[in-house]
């Protein structure tokens, strides 16, 4: 019993660190990525002792600013709901992670601990139920602010959520029919199989239309461009969080990014194999750990070495370019990567080619968790990438896309899949 509690707590901590740790990184990626996409350099001014690290110091400065900013509370707000709303939104954004499997299992002393906080047999329903609760927070914020713009933003958010939740639910129906389970762990392990011996049985391969519809609906669910109508600074100022300041605003902001991470995790879990690495099943990894582990370590050493070399070359070339602490930046980064590379090389002293069965199991788990985190990070970046590519939809366009295009397509997809499953 005690072990279960400790294991669960550790898993919760892992998920929280992943989600909350990704938020500042995503803020940075959003600002820097948008800048580079638009041919700007982006944030690069905040510095610690003159070291700027290409804007990575900005999230720290943002946190300090938001913590110490005055919490303005306008007259006429509904006190209790106004204060509650950001917490509802943020809470809802965080609890969805409970059912997402981030790895197969971890073997500790002969026991297999499944790497998911709560393995519910209605996992996917739980996600949808909780995710739509977020709308309550938004409506609360919009109504309690006693501001018409905020209220309009909240209303737009609700109608958008309702419209897109239907297509979202229908889009994954085909997937559920094929894997015959609502349990996310089973859906993920089902995607580890191969079709005809070479094609990974990922959701995106067997349900391409479903994947497209689901990804689109997830964008609407997380209120990201091109579906970020609850905001829309040009027509309704800033939407539901218009009257919020300091840390309360930051909670809305963090919730948006946390939602983005969950959206990315859901896309990865349902349609891109979750923690599965294509053509490398767990058996393959554990059986070949004595060659795979040195390979991975060697690759890590080579990649960090190349990055370190590039940075050092830049440090030598640009010596004295700025005449201040910034000149030390490439050297510092190069040093960091050199240390990582050296550590990877040093680990060869532990003879990774003679890894035991316990080590092999741990290695397989780490590799799979790494694959999951990598996919999540990629889809988070995908959210940012799409945001800076597509303009926002007009409201009637959004509605007609949701009801006249996505819903019929999702239904058609469901019917075709059902017929296919019945025949096969």
């Amino acid at each position: 019993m005690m072990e279960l509690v400790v294991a669960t707590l550790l898993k919760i901590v892992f998920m929280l660190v992943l989600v909350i740790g990704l938020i500042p990184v995503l803020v940075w990626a959003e600002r820097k990525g948008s800048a580079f996409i638009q041919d700007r350099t982006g944030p690069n001014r905040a510095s610690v002792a003159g070291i700027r690290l290409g804007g990575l110091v900005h999230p720290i400065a943002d946190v300090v600013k938001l913590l110490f900013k005055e919490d303005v509370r306008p007259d006429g707000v509904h006190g209790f709901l106004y204060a509650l709303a950001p917490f509802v939104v943020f809470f809802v954004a965080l609890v969805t992670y409970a059912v997402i499997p981030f790895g197969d299992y971890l073997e500790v002393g002969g026991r297999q601990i499944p790497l998911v906080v709560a393995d519910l047999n209605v996992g996917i329903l739980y996600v949808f139920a909780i995710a739509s609760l977020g709308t309550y927070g938004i409506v609360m914020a919009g109504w309690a602010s006693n501001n018409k713009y905020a209220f309009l933003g909240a209303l737009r958010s609700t109608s958008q959520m309702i419209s897109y939740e239907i297509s979202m639910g229908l889009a994954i129906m085909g997937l559920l029919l094929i894997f015959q389970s609502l349990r996310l762990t089973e859906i993920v392990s089902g995607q580890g199989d191969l079709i005809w011996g070479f094609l990974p049985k990922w959701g995106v391969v067997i349900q391409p239309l479903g994947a497209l519809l689901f990804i689109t609906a997830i964008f609407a669910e997380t209120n990201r461009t091109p579906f970020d109508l609850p905001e829309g600074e040009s027509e309704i100022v800033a939407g539901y969080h218009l009257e919020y300041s300091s840390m309360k605003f930051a909670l809305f902001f963090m919730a948006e990014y946390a939602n983005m991470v969950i959206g990315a995790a859901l896309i990865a879990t349902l349609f891109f194999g979750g923690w599965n690495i294509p053509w490398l099943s767990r058996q393959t990894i554990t059986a070949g750990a004595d060659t795979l582990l040195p390979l991975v370590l060697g690759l890590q050493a080579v990649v960090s070495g190349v990055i370190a070399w590039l940075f050092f070359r830049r440090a030598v070339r640009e010596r004295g370019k700025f005449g201040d602490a910034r000149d030390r930046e490439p050297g510092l980064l190069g040093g960091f990567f050199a240390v990582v590379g050296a550590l990877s090389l040093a680990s060869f002293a532990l003879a990774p080619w003679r890894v035991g069965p316990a080590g092999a199991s741990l290695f397989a788990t780490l590799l799979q968790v790494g694959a999951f985190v990598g996919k999540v990070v990629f889809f988070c970046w995908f959210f940012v990438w799409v945001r800076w590519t597509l303009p926002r939809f007009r409201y009637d366009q959004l509605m007609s896309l949701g009801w006249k295009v996505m819903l019929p397509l999702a239904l058609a997809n469901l019917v075709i899949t059902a017929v296919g499953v019945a025949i096969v």
Partner: protein
Amino acid sequence: MSLGERVYVGEVLRGLLITIRHLLRNIFAMKDMPTVQYPEEKPRYSDRFRGRHRLMKRDDGSPRCVACMMCSTACPADCIHITAAEHPDPTIEKYPERFDIDLLRCVYCGLCEEACPCDAIRMDTGIYEIVADAREKFFVDKDFLLNDETRGTL
């Protein structure tokens, strides 16, 4: 719109390709980015650029301005205020006792330069960063316009 454009997905992918191309080019060839790192690197403007005004002097150091009021009449923003006084030299009719410009009202149109019959006011200083921490400091007088060396900070 053609059918391909109406399906939209292909066009979205095309858009994504365009943005990622910009991103990669800017990461791997940061030197070619058109951004100017402003406080460290100053933009180079053409010689005809209109910066902050200055007043010209005669050889003896007195202002070349004869307080004819042409510039303040031509000024569309009404930012030049001149108080004329009689000049001790009988060959010169008047001189400006006060010559004030409200830099906050100025629209940098250059009509004062055009109107001036004796080339007394010019906007060729090249100063485009005009900074002060109080509104009143932007109200500059004759002395400042004749002799200022602050390069922008008032």
